[in-house]
């Protein structure tokens, strides 16, 4: 028993010596940047406790590596490992194991801020940073933050954990996933828009439909098997029809929501939009009389009256209905040149079908505006414009009444003649507008002429400046001679 005790004691003494040596080396290491003396003391205490517990077993102590004293911030130094093994046969191991003695001169004592301006300060780097891939180089602040936040455990120094990788490449992952979503949304949105446009065309532009019965030419081509719809973008479709009395042609433009564009979809969450269809009918010059009229919801009517030049010049918002007549729904406002025109255009049939109180409750959600004008600013002067909301592909039948307004108004306006009293008023307004337009044009012409004259003068002056002194003298002599000739009395020669 005593022998056993005597066998146990020498290794314990050796261990104590070893721990003293370790504590000495670590206390020296504490002078370097990145080491904290408090942490080291607690580490020694832990080591001592574990050493007391393990009597006969071999003890392995890993020392942290001394920091590299160099300007590179990415090369790690291998850890110095001191291994001691106690056994019964060797009771007196060497009390001074080999250890790396640190440089007594600290690295930063020799560092001069002014002399080495711009060169990074030397410091210890974690093995985690060095194992980072090239992508997460110092240029990536996200990767830097991730590297600083969580140093890798000793077992996984070579590879990074998935959580760290996610954090390091969060921008890339977000952008690539957004692009994938964008691509998927592009195809689904495109298909949705095409479905709505085709549903509209199937309902109103195919054989025996409303437009087939009203126009001899449907579609953008002049052949038989030409496409009905023309696709201008993923969200814009056009339908053209021509060959009807009173008008040159009709162009229907479907402007859908940008379902194919994910960014626009996100914007539409804040500023909602609706699918719209605009019918523009170009009337024949001789068939349309003096008519300027617009019908829209009150707010929209006011903005139309401010923005549209023809409404601004010739029309005003009607405050009351024509005497003894049913009128449009309360939500709507009428902007017209005169009450007579408004009364003649908004007929009982129109009120019954769409614009009256009862009908508007049902179909008002699809109505946006009507705008008829013989004084429209643009390539065509006499145009009827209808703007409606497009329903879903499944509810396309709900706008049948609204679409029926188009041929109805073509015929109504084509046949319409103003009374002589109203006509005299409208003609006065139009002649006044024509005079104003003429004055404007004249002013523009004069400005252009003056500009030309000024330019000519400039060119002449430049040319004169370029002429040499001799040429100038000759020119002056010529001018003088010309003036002398002018000033001399005119002598008439008479033959006797």
């Amino acid at each position, binding site marked *: 028993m005593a022998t056993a005790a005597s066998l146990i004691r020498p290794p314990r003494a050796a261990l104590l010596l070893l721990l003293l040596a370790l504590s000495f080396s670590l206390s020296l290491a504490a002078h370097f940047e990145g080491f904290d003396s408090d942490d080291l003391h607690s580490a020694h205490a832990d080591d001592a406790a574990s050493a007391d517990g393990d009597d006969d077993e071999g003890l392995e102590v890993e020392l942290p590596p001394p920091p590299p004293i160099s300007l590179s911030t990415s090369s790690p130094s291998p850890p110095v490992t001191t291994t001691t093994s106690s056994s019964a046969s060797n009771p007196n191991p060497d009390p001074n194991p080999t250890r790396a003695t640190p440089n007594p001169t600290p690295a930063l004592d020799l560092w001069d801020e002014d002399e080495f301006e711009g060169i990074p300060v030397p410091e210890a780097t974690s093995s985690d940073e060095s194992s980072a891939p090239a992508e997460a180089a*110092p240029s990536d602040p996200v990767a830097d933050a991730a590297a600083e936040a969580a140093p890798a455990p000793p077992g996984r120094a070579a590879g990074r954990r998935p959580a760290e990788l996610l954090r390091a490449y969060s921008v890339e992952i977000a*952008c690539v996933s957004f692009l994938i979503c*964008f691509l998927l949304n592009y195809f689904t949105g495109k298909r949705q828009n095409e479905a709505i446009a085709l549903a509209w065309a199937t309902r109103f532009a195919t054989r025996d439909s409303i437009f087939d019965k009203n126009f001899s030419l449907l579609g953008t*081509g002049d052949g038989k098997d030409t496409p009905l719809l023309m696709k201008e973008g993923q969200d814009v479709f056009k339908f053209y029809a*021509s060959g009807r009395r009173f008008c040159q042609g009709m162009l229907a433009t479907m402007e859908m929501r940008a379902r194919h564009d994910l960014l626009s979809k996100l914007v539409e969450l804040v500023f909602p939009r609706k699918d719209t269809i605009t019918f523009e009918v170009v009337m024949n010059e001789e068939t349309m009389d003096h008519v300027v009229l617009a019908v829209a919801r009150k707010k929209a009517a006011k903005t139309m009256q401010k923005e549209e030049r023809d409404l601004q010049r010739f029309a005003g918002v009607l405050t009351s209905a024509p005497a003894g007549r049913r009128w449009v729904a309360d939500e709507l406002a009428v902007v017209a040149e005169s009450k007579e025109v408004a009364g003649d255009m908004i007929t009982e049939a129109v009120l019954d079908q769409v614009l009256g109180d009862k009908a508007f409750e049902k179909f008002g959600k699809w109505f946006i505006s009507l705008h008829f004008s013989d004084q429209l600013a643009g390539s065509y002067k006499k145009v009827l414009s209808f703007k409606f909301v497009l329903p879903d592909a499944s509810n396309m039948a709900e706008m*049948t009444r609204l679409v029926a307004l188009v*041929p109805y108004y073509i015929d109504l306006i084509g046949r319409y003649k103003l009374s002589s009293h109203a006509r005299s008023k409208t003609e006065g307004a139009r002649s006044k507008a024509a005079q104003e337009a003429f004055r404007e044009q004249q002013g523009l012409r004069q400005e252009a002429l003056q500009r030309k004259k000024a330019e000519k003068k400039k060119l002449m002056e430049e040319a004169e400046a370029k002429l040499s002194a001799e040429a100038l003298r000759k020119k002056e002599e010529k001018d003088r001679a010309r003036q002398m000739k002018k000033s001399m009395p005119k002598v008439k020669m008479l033959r006797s």
Partner: protein
Amino acid sequence: MKEAASSGGGSAGGSDPRMASTARPYTPPKLSPQDLPIDYAGFLAVVFGVVGVMLRYKVCSWIAIIFCAQSLANMKNFENDLKQLSMAFMFAVMGLVTNYLGPPRPGSTKR
């Protein structure tokens, strides 16, 4: 109007309103480049692409790529929009290449 709604608006006066003799084939309006709507996505793509290349910001280059995709999706006038779009895409790709494969940005080392 009631009749028009039911019969497809065919006749206000009973006769067939169609006149084949007056039919004109569709001629698209000639639009000058000034009249075309502004391609904001393309413009932003160029801006972000240039910033990404010059200031070495990865995020800007990625945003430029996204705006390029939007501009491509909304392209209506192929000839006019393609120049701007190709330039934006070139800047965006150049930015990504220089950021990922080029040398690290100066002054980005930790102190």
